[in-house]
Every structure is written in structure tokens, then in C-alpha cells.
């Protein structure tokens, strides 16, 4: 019991004093995972739209691929990106392995199917005739797609949150392609693993609490958005 209490108080101290190393790790985590989420949105949302609205051969195959990807183990994504970026690999010349960029790429691999899958479901909830109706009022093709997304904006927010939540909390890929290098690629999850292994429970608990706070924030934003329909009505 003493061990836990001690760890907990030292964690609070680290956070309260804004320990420079902890802050550095937090900002890198946010930077990597938010960037990966943005990349995942840029790819996943159009893919979701394509599957939800489009009618083309191979559509069901693509949907199956996306759904499979939603369960992609981070370690597999990490392995794949490591192979891609390995010095003698196809993209080895770019020397990206063990950089934050590599982590963003790996995490985007994890988040894109999540965003694509959930946005497909979200966009399919919109009446299929809705887009026809928007076209029938003079909306252009792109505008009509935007209008469909606008109708589904609440469930689409869930897609964003799921993507971000999926990558901020993963450790496998971040370790493999980042390497947990101090001041360079150390993020909350990899740092927590390392500090636990070293018996530094205070730091490990501090990182754990920050992760928990981020998870709580994600859920809070979602809940508020769902509860305040009127805020989203216009």
C-alpha cells in the first residue's frame, strides 16, 4: 500500500511542478497522435464517404478490408512500418525510422481504418435520398457530399475520437518505430512502460494519470456534443 501511495504522491509532485521531462513527453505524445489523427481523417473520411455513398465494384471488399483494419494489432502496424522504413527497405533512404515522423506514419496506419470504418457507419445513417435532395436544390457534387457529412457530424466526431483514442494509448507501434529515445521519440505510453520496468512507479503513475485524463477529455467532449444537440443544430 505504501508503494502505491508513494508513487501517487510523487506523480502529483511531477505534474504540479510541471516537470520539464514529463511536459516534453506529453507534448510529443499529443503532437504525434494528433498528427496521426489528422492524416487518418484526411484518408479515412473520404474512404468512408466512398463506401457509404458510392456504388462501385469491389465496394464490399473495401468495406471488409476496412473492418479488418479496425482490429489491426498496433504491433503489426509497427512491424509493417518498420519494414518499410528499414535502412535497406523500400523507403529506407528517407532515414525516418526512430523519428516522430515514423511514429505518425505507424499511428496513421492504426487510426485510418478506425476513422474509415466508423465514418462509413455514421454516413450510412443519413437517408440515402438526402444527397439527391441536396443535388435537387442546386448543391454541386462536392457540396452535396459535404451536406451528407454535416448531417452526420455527431457520429463523425465519434470517428475522430476513436482514431485519436486508439493511437494516444497504443504502445506497440510507438516502441517499434520510435524506439523510445529520450528527448526524441519518447511518448507517454513508451515512457510509462520503461519507468515501470525500472521500478520508478512515481513517473509511471504520472504518465498513466495523464493518459487517463486525456481519455476522460475525449469521452467528455463526445458526451457534451451528444447532450447539447442544440449547439450543433445550426
Amino acid at each position, binding site marked *: 500500500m505504501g508503494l502505491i501511495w508513494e508513487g501517487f504522491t510523487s506523480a502529483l509532485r511531477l505534474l504540479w511542478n510541471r516537470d520539464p521531462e514529463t511536459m516534453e513527453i506529453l507534448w510529443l505524445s499529443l503532437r504525434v497522435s494528433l498528427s496521426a489523427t489528422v492524416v487518418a481523417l484526411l484518408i479515412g473520411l473520404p474512404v468512408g464517404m466512398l463506401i457509404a455513398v458510392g456504388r462501385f465494384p469491389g465496394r464490399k471488399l473495401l468495406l471488409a478490408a476496412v473492418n479488418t483494419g479496425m482490429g489491426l494489432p498496433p504491433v503489426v502496424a509497427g512491424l509493417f512500418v518498420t519494414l518499410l522504413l528499414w535502412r535497406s527497405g523500400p523507403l529506407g533512404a528517407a532515414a525516418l525510422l526512430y523519428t516522430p515522423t515514423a511514429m505518425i506514419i505507424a499511428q496513421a496506419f492504426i487510426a485510418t481504418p478506425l476513422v474509415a470504418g466508423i465514418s462509413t457507419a455514421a454516413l450510412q445513417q443519413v437517408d440515402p435520398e438526402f444527397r*439527391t435532395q441536396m*443535388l435537387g436544390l442546386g448543391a454541386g457534387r462536392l457540396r452535396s457530399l459535404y451536406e451528407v457529412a454535416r448531417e452526420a457530424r455527431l457520429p463523425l466526431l465519434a470517428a475522430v475520437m476513436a482514431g485519436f483514442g486508439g493511437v494516444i494509448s497504443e504502445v506497440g507501434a510507438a516502441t517499434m518505430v520510435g524506439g523510445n529515445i529520450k528527448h526524441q521519440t519518447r511518448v507517454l505510453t513508451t515512457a510509462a512502460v520503461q519507468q515501470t520496468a525500472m521500478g520508478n512507479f512515481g513517473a509511471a503513475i504520472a504518465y498513466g494519470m495523464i493518459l487517463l485524463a486525456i481519455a476522460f477529455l475525449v469521452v467528455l467532449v463526445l458526451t457534451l456534443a451528444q447532450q447539447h444537440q442544440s449547439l450543433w*443544430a*445550426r
Partner: protein
Amino acid sequence: MGPVTDPLIELRDVAIDRGGRTILDVPHLKLADGTVVAALGRNGAGKSTLLRAIGGLAEPTRGTIMLNGSPSTAGDRRRLISAVLQRPLLRRGTVSSNIEAGMRFRGIERRERPARTETWLKALELSHLADQQVHRLSGGEAQRVSLARALALRPRLLLLDEPFTSLDTPTKAELLSDLRGVIDKERCAVFFVTHDRHEASLLADRVAILHQGRILQEGPLAEVHDHPSDMMGAELLGYRNQLPADQLPSAIPRKGSMLLIRGSDLTVGRAPTNGWEIPAVAVRATIDGDAPSVVAMVGNIPVMARVVDAATPSPGESVTLHVNPTHVRWC
């Protein structure tokens, strides 16, 4: 721009295939400014498909759709239309924001929008709901918003895809008469899809009878109504009583194998001048629209006749049915 005489829209050999089947095949159809054309047909007759082809919301597999006398693309036509579909598909938000949305799509100037919105809210008696969230509206109110949104664009061509189907009868009648007034004022061309001949006769100038993707007959409302060219059209236009010639008394001059009679032209009670008479047996009393009527058997064929200036016959009673021969059809 072609010569002044060109109709707004003209379909030439337009066909649409789906899954290896031709679901629409229209050799020719014209839509002119200020004219309401109703497409009348059963479910699955291809009415909505035709509406979408005309409006540029579905691509024809073959054929040309002329716009002011020149071949047009779907995009060209989408620029002049506004559509009201069967279900009111409103965007999230208020009634006003919905009406303004269409104007925004069309690039109507920002400062012009509020005044136009107000005008159309008033025209469709929605002013008190301007700031209401659309998910709080009743079905009838939502459909009015959908109509106001379409009309606020002041389209050259208004497309109505059974927009009144989900409304109750009094709401429908009121909305239809309001709408006809608006259309007359705006002088736009209207293509109106319905399966209800009453709606068609309240709104349309011309009627096209659609069956299995083909236009069986097209012409002025009164002409099509009084002279349907075949059984399908006759049925859609209310010639609900169909008697095989061999069931008829010999006094009736035969001009085909089947006699078609509209509900209002088959009566019990006061006899019309020069009417035909058919003996029958009353089965039960009923109401047709608002007219007292009786279901009767002619041989083994059931018919429905209006009761005019007489007591409703009791079940089992022998009656004489009077036929007004002016509008009967033979097939």
C-alpha cells in the same frame, strides 16, 4: 437559346437500364413554361426515375434531353430545377436556415436571402415556425418547409415527387390549392409525379399515364381523363367498374369486349336521360368519397354505384343500375 417556340425541356428517346432491364423508355415528352405535367402511374411504373432523369438527378442510359432546344447535360438541368421528394429531407437546423440553404447552394446573394425566406415562409403559412428546429415539425409542416425551400429558389422547373402522399386529406387539399396559386404566379414548368388522380386533377394541366417505364398516353388533363386510351390508364383515372360485354343486357350497343365506367357514371335511383340500364343485386351499402354508394353484383362481377335521390338498397335487393354513356370506355 433556341427559337422562342422551343419547350423548356424535351425528351428524345430517353431510356434508363438498371441491372440489364430497361426501367424507363420515353420516346418523347415536352415540358413547357407555366405548365404542370402530372405523371400518373402505379408504384414502380418508373415515375420517379423519369423525374430524376428530367432533373439531372439520374443519368439516362440512352437518349437526349433538350433544354431550350439544345442538348443538355445533367449538370445543366440541375441548375434550373428544384426538387421536392416524397419524404421531406430537411437539414439539421431551423426552418429558416433550411430555406436559406438552397439559396446558398445557388449562389443567391446573402443580402437577398432573408427577404425571400420571409416571403416563402409567409406563402406557405410557416412564418410562426421560422426559428423552430426542424426535428420538432409535424410531417405536414416539414413538407411545407420542403416546398418553401424549393420555391424560394424560383426554379424554372419544379419537380414534385409525390410530396403529398404522407399528408392527411385536409392538409393535402389546402396545400395543393395554395401550390397551384403559387405556380400560376411564378409561371415555372412543373413535373409532378403521383399515383393519385385527385391530386393530378387538382394540380395538373396535362397528364402522362406511365406503366412499366413507358408513357401509355399523354395529353391535356380533360382529354386524357375522358378518353383513356387503354385499361391501365382507365383504371388510374377512376374507371373502376369493369364489365365484360357478355354480362351486359343486349340493349347496350357493344363496341369492345370490356366496358369501363367511372364511379360517378354508374348510379342507382334517379335515371339519367338516355342512360343504359343494367340489372344487378345489391350487396352492401358504402360511401365513395363523400357520396352514399352501394356495392352490387352484375352476374358475378362486383361494381360500385352511387345512390342518387333514393334510399340505399338493402342487401339482396334487386336494383337497376343506370349508366351515363357519355364517358364510358370500351376495351
